[in-house]
């Protein structure tokens, strides 16, 4: 980027020279630059003999009105394409980092209840008895263990009040491994989207006066409204109190911070006595967990960035490559070796989570200046790029 900037600035210098002439210092700069390479000198000569008529022809081919119209219709088309991608119907769309095909979706858009396919299995449900069921292994799953309490769909577990046979405060724990993604509907109708490498503990039936669940990892909640029973999500570092609302909690701590992002309603995020924040829709709270006792504060991170995973995207906004790799590790269930070789470079772009790991690594490879990847089984070695 720095080098491109330099060339843009030289371009401005050239233009100034031809129109007005330069002062001594500028002239010296330009002459030094011309001597740096043959290409430089060639570009300089080309510019000196440029015919403005030819330029007019070059730049007037484009109808700005038509292009702006096209741009608007592309933006408007985004929502539909997002929905398709999330529902898993759309063919793989190859998205590139930085220069990516970005999908636009409106903040108000209703999210599709379908859940993307889990790339790999191993979703486990721990019952209050301590018995563990592998929900991904439908063939060997003894469905009677949860019968009466919950209904198992593809990639979704649904607890239903009307069929519940238990009245005891029994707890279940749902564990989503790396490389998977799951959807849970709690007994009160609250919907939970669980991201990879996450676990949630919840009662099969909620208590009379409160609804409490415990989360590790990342999840998006759409809480059923019930003002008599406030809903609370507990995490290691903070708790989120809600009435009826939808929000995302991310406790991965990839960049040393944990986040709560509110889509609708009101939530209170509390990390300790006198360390709480009430969020308005669209706001994101962050807590730095690298040092104890840090204050909760509003984040520069956007809501869309926080909930992109649920919409079927990786969303990077000036994200350091090292943090990106952590997200990729969780989603594709791979491990990067020698991640220390990754520099300070940051990237911006959206990528569909429907792309294969190879495509994704290709996209990153194209963008980075100095690293390359070599994959052996589930291990990805980071090596220096050979030119």
């Amino acid at each position, binding site marked *: 980027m720095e080098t491109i900037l330099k060339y843009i600035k030289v371009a401005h210098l050239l233009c100034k020279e031809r129109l007005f002439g330069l002062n001594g210092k500028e002239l010296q700069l330009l002459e030094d630059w011309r001597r740096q390479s043959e*290409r430089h000198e060639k570009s300089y000569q080309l510019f000196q003999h440029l015919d403005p008529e030819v330029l007019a022809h070059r730049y007037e081919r484009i109808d700005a009105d038509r*292009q702006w119209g096209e741009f608007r219709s592309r933006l408007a088309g985004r929502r539909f394409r997002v929905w398709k991608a999330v529902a898993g119907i759309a063919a793989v769309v190859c998205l590139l980092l930085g220069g990516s095909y970005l999908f636009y979706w409106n903040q108000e858009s209703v999210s599709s209840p379908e859940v993307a396919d889990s790339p790999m299995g191993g979703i486990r449900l721990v019952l209050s008895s301590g018995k563990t069921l592998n929900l991904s292994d439908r063939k060997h799953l003894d469905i009677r263990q949860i019968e009466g309490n919950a209904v198992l769909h593809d990639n979704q577990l649904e607890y239903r009040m009307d069929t519940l046979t238990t009245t005891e405060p029994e707890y279940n724990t749902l564990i989503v491994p790396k490389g998977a993604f799951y959807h849970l509907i709690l007994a009160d109708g609250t919907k939970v989207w669980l991201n990879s490498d996450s676990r949630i503990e919840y009662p099969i039936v909620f208590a009379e006066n409160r609804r409490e669940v415990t989360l590790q990892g990342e999840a998006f909640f759409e809480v059923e409204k019930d003002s008599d029973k406030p809903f609370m999500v507990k995490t290691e570092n903070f708790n989120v109190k809600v009435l009826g609302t939808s929000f995302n909690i991310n406790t991965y701590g990839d960049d040393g911070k944990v986040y709560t992002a509110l889509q609708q309603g009101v939530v209170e995020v509390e990390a300790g006595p006198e360390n709480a924040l009430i969020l308005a829709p669209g706001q994101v709270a962050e807590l730095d967990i690298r040092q104890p006792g840090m204050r909760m504060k509003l984040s520069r991170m956007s809501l869309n960035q926080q909930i992109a995973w649920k919409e079927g995207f990786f969303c990077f906004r000036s994200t350091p490559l090292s943090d990106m790799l952590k997200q990729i590790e969780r989603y594709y269930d791979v491990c990067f070796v020698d991640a220390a070789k990754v520099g300070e470079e940051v990237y911006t772009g959206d990528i569909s989570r429907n792309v294969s790991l190879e495509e994704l690594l290709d996209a990153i490879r194209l963008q980075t200046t100095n690293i390359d990847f070599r994959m052996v089984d589930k291990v990805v070695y980071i090596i220096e790029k050979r030119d």
Partner: protein
Amino acid sequence: MLVYEKQIKFGDGDVLSFENFFRENFSKFYAFTTRFIGDNYVCEDIVQETFITIWETDNYHYETLLMLNAFIYKTIRNKALNYLKHHKIRKQYSQKYLQELESQEYMYTSVLNEESHYLLYKAISSLTPQCQQVIKLHLEGKSNKEIAEEMKISVVTVKSHKLVAYKELRNILQHSLSLMLYVSVIFLKK
């Protein structure tokens, strides 16, 4: 409802209307793309998608307008190379030509040429037809007297047109003139 009004806010405090930026710069970036790819529709598509990326970018992501321009050039170039890589077109290009297209130097030279040519075009086309004529003849190396003869006006009128034109051009280039300081810093680093 989608809202098509958006401002691009820069870290240095600059604010720009997205639509204006799009309309002002689309043809420049399109022309840049044609340096890599011959198919007009593919070029349009690449520039369109790049602007979508910019639309989605959070505020204050770019420190300055120049950095935004640099980012767009880089993005377009990567998209174009990727397109060449993933399509059969690659086979129609000679290996040597492809190597040239993929080189860093080719990108830098392309940025330099496009940016300088477009700036010159914008500067001249913003003038009145009379002033434009004077400046074009001046750029061809003609003297005031020769210009006066060709345009059938007096030398005094030529001079006054030039004065107006330069004032206008200075206005347009003002943004870039203030950058000169940084250029020196960058050259020193090298």
